[in-house]
């Protein structure tokens, strides 16, 4: 049995769906952030699979950029979470209702 592009895409889609599930279900900011990171990684897997099956190298270059930007984004996001924790002593999204209408 040959592995096709669709198999890779389906695995990446499953990973994205799990990340979406985590973002929706969990209440803790850190876990939500990890699930977001997982969705980014699913997009990376799609990029690399398309790059391999279409003989493009551009896809891998884009994954390189995505990994770089994701690392910077994680650092900024975690700094924000720490600042929030200092202010409110909590990381649960339930307690962050300042912008609630």
């Amino acid at each position, binding site marked *: 049995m*040959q*592995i096709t*592009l*669709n*198999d*890779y*895409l*389906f*695995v990446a*889609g499953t*990973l*994205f*769906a*799990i990340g*979406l*599930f*985590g973002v*929706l*279900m969990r*209440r*803790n900011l*850190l*876990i939500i*952030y*990890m*699930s977001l990171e*997982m969705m980014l*990684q699913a997009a*990376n*897997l799609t990029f*690399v*699979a398309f*790059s*391999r*099956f279409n*003989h*493009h*190298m*551009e896809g*891998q*270059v884009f*994954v*390189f*950029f995505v*990994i*770089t930007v994701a*690392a*910077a*984004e*994680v650092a*900024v996001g*975690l*700094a*924000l*979470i*720490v*600042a929030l924790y200092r202010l409110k002593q*909590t*990381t*649960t999204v339930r307690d962050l209702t300042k912008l609630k209408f």
Partner: protein
Amino acid sequence: MQPLFFWIFSIGMILCALAVVFNRNAVASALCFTFAICFMAGLFVMLSAFFLAAVQILVTAGAVMVLFLFIIMLLDLSAMEHAPRHWIWMAFSGLLALAFLALIGKTLATLPAMAEPPASYQSQAQVTAFGKTVDQNISQSRIDKGDDTHRIGRLLFATKPAPGETWESFTSYVAPFEITSLLILVATIGIIVLCKQEERPRPHHREEISREAPPVPPVREDREAALKT
């Protein structure tokens, strides 16, 4: 042999991803995430993206997860472990995720199955770049030689086309790369600004300030008297 490894890596990755979402202990979640990233690096190796597999393990599984673990240990997350589960909300979000997955599966089922091309890029007759079809002699020239690291490096840093390559088919990502470095600089400055503690006056210093009498505004008669003498 290859399908076996593909299924081992992908099923391991998906099980680890599920463990990230369902684990109550945040440290265990982070460890499961690291394992999922390692499995994904295995998938990258199977897709012959060796450089990205190394970068994935170094940056995402190494640096990013260490950062996550630092923050998890810095904050007190013990309240999370005893929080009650909201079953209705859980079922709703699971349904939404399953609907998304069904959408992806339905779309993929309509696509024709694309078999994996041969490992050697040079054996391919035609290479398409941004919709332009490049001639066979160009694809077999120097630009396609070398491993994936070499090719990514050429795409990222080359400022002029290689011998045998035309300017039309030449793409370079030097400018985005430099902009990324600027982005990292801005992120670093932002983090320092965010994490800087407000400088509070020390207690004894504050007492001194309060004990001091407020400056008395000069009385008019006094000033006139001083002027006379």
